[in-house]
């Protein structure tokens, strides 16, 4: 699994961090998404898919 984030789209809603805290963080100055791990291990796959699904700005893309 490969995760791609689009910083320009991100509106800092923080949903991704709630869903998968080991994979996403938010930049302190403005809350923009920070990708901690672009190849998350399989045990986090469900959480990461959920993060992409709840991102209101459609800023997270997953390549399986």
């Amino acid at each position: 699994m490969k995760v791609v984030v689009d910083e320009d789209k991100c509106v800092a809603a923080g949903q991704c961090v709630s869903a998968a805290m080991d994979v996403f963080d938010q930049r302190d100055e403005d809350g923009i998404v920070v990708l901690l791990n672009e190849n998350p291990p399989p045990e986090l796959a469900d959480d990461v898919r959920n993060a992409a699904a709840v991102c209101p700005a459609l800023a997270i893309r997953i390549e399986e």
Partner: protein
Amino acid sequence: MTEADVRLAPDEPVYYYQDDRDAKCPYAPPPGLRALNDEAPISRGRIWDGSTPWLVTGHAAQRAILSDPRVSSDDKQAGFPYPNQAMAENAPHHPLTIFNADGADHTRIRRMMTRPFTRPRMEALRPEIQRFTDELIDKMLAGPKPVNLTTALSLPLPSLMICALLGVPYEDHEFFQKHARVATTSEKTAEDDRAAGEALGGYLANLLQVKMETPADDVLSDFAARIKAGDLTLPEATLLSMILLIAGHETSATMITLGTGLLLDNPEQLRLLRETDDPKIVANAVDEILRYLTVATFGQRRIAREDFAFEGADIKAGDGIIVPLPAGNWDPVAFPDPERLDLTRKATHHHAFGWGIHQCLGQQLARIELQVVYGTLYRRIPTLRLAVDRDELKFRPADALAFGVSELPVTW
């Protein structure tokens, strides 16, 4: 009459948007609104000014329309479906804010406001939220009963938190709660609306000037530094501060009060909260209660920029579009048996905070406040119950911007 009206067949039945909730079941969305979605994910509704904007009721359709670049949030365009007359009259004077800006403008404004509300920062505030909650419950337990939960806990907690974040003295809370309430009611004149805005604005502009001289570690000081650096004007910073202050008040308060009413009506679900100390279970429960109640009943509002086909409907440029969030949150396709409150349900895809780039900025603060309150109140007061019959509760009319009751008398 707008052009959109002309295209309706004369005898076509039109749903009156924002009819009241069912008195027997006041925690559920109006039954008429839910029934629309059984027919189609998009239909037309009549609103207070007689116009008939589109109502997008399906969960998937709500996501699609709220992510569609062919619709705009610009509330200055003719045909925009305003929630009430006062807001319609004042719209031409509205400056650009996070609510009515699109695209790059929206991104620019939103990014100035997001810093204090990130999930990691909110998580760091959890102990403080817990401390405020415990103190308010201590006070409630030490005082006379019954007590109105709204004034004892629901309003003071979010109020304390938003004041601490912004750097606004809590001593002034009666002043701004009064004016914040005007922003969320529908029974007001355009003049009331403007007067409340001016009173709050004057107060916050003053405070911003103080923070320019003596900054502290808070949002207003952040804005003050941007004014000094020339990135923001004082009126712009005042407006951003006002939005945060108002938004931080009523909605969380309503969720605490109504959530308690709802849980007391569902004792077997309440038991789950009373008996767990697992933060994951509590967090899950909060999202389900958010889904169930969807207090932002007015819905997100948009206007079409161009003609396009959507879910079988021909949307024309200039058509108003309303996205009634409670309907999407009770769409059985997204939430099977939506009328069942099930605190173990996976409900994080709900639309209680809206959807798309305008999704609520303060949602992580709201979530943690609710997690702390729901996780603490019923464990500390296991015998909590309503002090009046539920029929005696006075629910706000359906056209209020946030659903709620002003009084929830409880005892234990």
